[in-house]
């Protein structure tokens, strides 16, 4: 898949990403526009082209990204400390997880409201009575 490496806000951006001027910290800083050399580096870093092509286009930045990649590859090997699993298991609440429909991680909380006909009729009568009382009070004022 080929990138649209020249995509910028107001330049026919088709990704749906909304750009807000100054909306984040990097937005306040000048970020150089993609050049052909930069595009070649992105394609290499995205695994779309071999490194040789990027080297031909932009040797000095390829060298920099090689070093950054070595560091990020090292971080990819980081493991969770062994004691963490035990700590988590010991911190779990007692008992079986509850079964309900409250939210987590952005899920929906829609609850169905169920009323029996008797309760609905009683509620309607109550609301009418309340309305009549409030009406009488306002009329007296």
């Amino acid at each position, binding site marked *: *898949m080929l*990138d*649209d490496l020249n*995509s910028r806000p107001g330049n026919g*951006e*088709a*990704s*749906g*990403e909304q750009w807000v001027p100054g*909306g*984040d*910290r*990097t*937005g306040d*800083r*000048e*970020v*150089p526009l*993609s050049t052909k050399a*930069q595009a070649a*580096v*992105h394609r290499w*870093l*995205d695994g779309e082209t071999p490194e040789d092509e990027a080297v031909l286009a932009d040797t*000095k*930045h390829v*060298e*920099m*990204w090689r*070093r*950054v*990649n070595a*560091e*990020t590859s*090292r*971080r*990819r*090997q*980081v*493991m*969770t*400390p062994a004691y*963490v*699993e035990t*700590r*988590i*298991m010991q*911190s*779990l*609440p007692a008992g*079986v*997880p*509850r*079964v*309900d429909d*409250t939210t*987590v*991680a*952005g*899920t929906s909380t829609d609850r169905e409201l169920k009323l029996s006909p008797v309760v609905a009729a009683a509620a309607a009568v109550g609301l009418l009575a309340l309305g009549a009382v409030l009406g009488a009070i306002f009329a007296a004022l």
Partner: protein
Amino acid sequence: MSSPAQQQAAVDQAAIDQEIIGRVLAGEREAFSTLIRRYSDPLYRHALGMTGSPDVAEDILQSSFIKAYEHLSEVRGRFDAWVFRIVANACKDWLKNIRRTHLSYDEDDQASGYATPDEELDRSELRSDLDRALAQLAPSLREAFIMKHVEGRSYEEMADLLGTTVGALKMRVHRAREALQGLLEEKYA
């Protein structure tokens, strides 16, 4: 794009996870440790990348798994994607609340693969500079860069986990790279 074999493996994994979830909900509490072992490493790396602090990453991992346990009956679909969103949201909340500007892996005791003291010194310097540069990125750009470069995920996988498009994520990763390049090139390019 993932291959049919990878897709099948993901389907199989999801079925195994659902079976484990069923056991936990039936009262077999210890079965939850299987889910922790299976998914803690990528989640820890994400939290560490986003916060820069091993202590904070551990706390986020712990609170996220507790939340996952408490709401386990609500899992619809893939457990790994669901728990990733809990961790990712916790990281963003932490960044929002703390507004840390300095990231450090100083407590990281991972073995070094560098041969000489000079190389070790260079690496240590790059590590600090990269942390400082990452800390200057907006959370959404940092998240995209960490997922792509540190966690080694494909754009398709990232889009699946974050619920956005491949195009939007490519743009975020490219913007993150360009910002990092601007911050690091004077010294390293």
